[in-house]
């Protein structure tokens, strides 16, 4: 069910006083919980919950032909599906825009941060490389699927190991994982989305808050201070001052979120 206008007005009124329906402060994240290794068949996997929101992410590896413009690099592909089971709003069928955007947002943060060292995933230049497939599924949409998916993707990657590959038969022996981890760098991309609602700015929105969000800025960056990807969503303009404020909020939140998941990234 869509959020009613009267609820939207009330959310804005509350925000004027720095309050939210669930008692959180505007810049407060819900509790994050993480579980890794949730699928035996995936080469890496994770479940991330942010409050009521839940996503699962699986990493599969396959030997593929490289893309023509990167003959010595592994392939990366991120897709997402908003499962009908996770919300009454999602319907079966070909992916609609929100699912496409979710996959692309995560793809860009990971790709641009060079988190996966794709050049180390080359088996034979121009012929064979590892393909890394990151698939994101929503299990329960309680708002902020983007940030949850971002965390899920990096954690699943961090746990992923290469399967055994029989060079002669050119066949992967799935189920027999090697000790070789998917090569990832130390600098970890964390995605944080900030929303502008009325005159307030919040992070980690609930579904209701997302419904009344006027502008949304998703930023992928590291605690070391680099920003890798930005995307503005929703149709309301923001001023340069507001943008600067969002950059500050996002930086602070990124550090907090990172420290709460750090132990899964070892």
């Amino acid at each position: 069910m869509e959020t009613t206008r009267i609820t939207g007005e009330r959310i804005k009124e509350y925000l004027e006083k720095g309050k939210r329906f669930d008692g959180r402060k505007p810049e407060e994240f819900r509790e994050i919980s993480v579980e890794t290794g949730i699928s035996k068949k995936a080469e890496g996997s994770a479940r991330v919950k942010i409050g009521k929101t839940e996503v699962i992410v699986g990493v599969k590896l396959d030997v593929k032909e490289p893309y023509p413009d990167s003959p010595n690099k592994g392939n990366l592909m991120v897709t997402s599906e908003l499962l009908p089971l996770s919300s009454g709003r999602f319907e079966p069928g070909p992916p609609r825009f929100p699912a496409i955007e979710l996959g692309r947002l995560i793809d860009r943060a990971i790709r641009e941060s060079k988190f996966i060292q794709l050049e180390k995933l080359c088996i034979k230049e121009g012929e064979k490389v590892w393909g890394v497939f990151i698939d994101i599924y929503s299990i329960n949409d309680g708002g902020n699927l983007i940030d949850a998916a971002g965390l899920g993707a990096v954690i699943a990657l961090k746990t992923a190991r290469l399967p055994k590959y029989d060079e002669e038969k050119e066949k992967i022996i799935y189920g027999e994982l090697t000790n070789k981890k998917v090569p990832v760098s130390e600098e970890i991309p964390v995605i944080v989305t900030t929303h502008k609602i009325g005159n307030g700015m919040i992070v980690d929105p609930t579904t209701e808050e997302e419904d009344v969000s006027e502008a949304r800025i998703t930023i992928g960056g590291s605690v070391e201070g680099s920003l890798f990807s930005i995307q503005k969503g929703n149709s309301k303009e923001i001023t340069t001052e507001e943008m600067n404020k969002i950059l500050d909020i996002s930086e602070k939140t990124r550090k907090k979120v990172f420290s709460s998941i750090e132990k899964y990234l070892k």
Partner: protein
Amino acid sequence: MKKKKEFKRPDGRKPDELRPMQAKVGIVPNADGSAIFSFGDTIAIAAVYGPKKMHPQHQQDPEKGTLRCNYSMLSFSVDDRIRPGPNRRSREISKITEWALEPSLLIKRYPNMVIDVHINIIQANASTRCAGINAAAMALAQAGIPMKNIVSSVSIGKLDKNLVVDLNKDEEDWEEGEGSTDIPITMTPNGEITHIQLDGRITKEQLKEVIELAGKSAKKVYEVQKKALKESVKM
């Protein structure tokens, strides 16, 4: 002594120099509004149909009109032929374009209606979404859609450590030093941001510089758009 030597761009432009821009309004006689906009070799055409009744009816919004953009690259607009039809990239850019344009429109005046904006890239040399947004903004103006202002879009790039305006393909693929960071931004003439994206690596301080530079550069685009619109109504 001057330490910093000015950065040499592959095509010899100054860091804050845009490629030659061309703009013309009224290129598709059938459409309610249309325009062509180019940054050098990047050429975008846009046509507006509507406002017209939204069909199917269940998609009607009784509170405001709907802006529906459709960005598409022609199959022969790039070196490797693109398979015709929508793909994930084009669907995202279409939505981004709607978000970039809508803040400037008084779309509330058209409940239950839809305004269709079709954008086609006929030749691509990077910054295609920016060219598309610029053409679309002009086409909407020509179609007489009431608007607060016209938006202008430009891409800012960071090549290694240097900020440049209006990236071309060679610059987009820059690999030296810190590589290339691409930041397309759309702004109103008052400097409000209606669209921003970023791919690459940058710090918060550098990004603030980027936004300032985008404001200055978008004004140059705005002048070109304004001039073309004025010419279109000359008798």
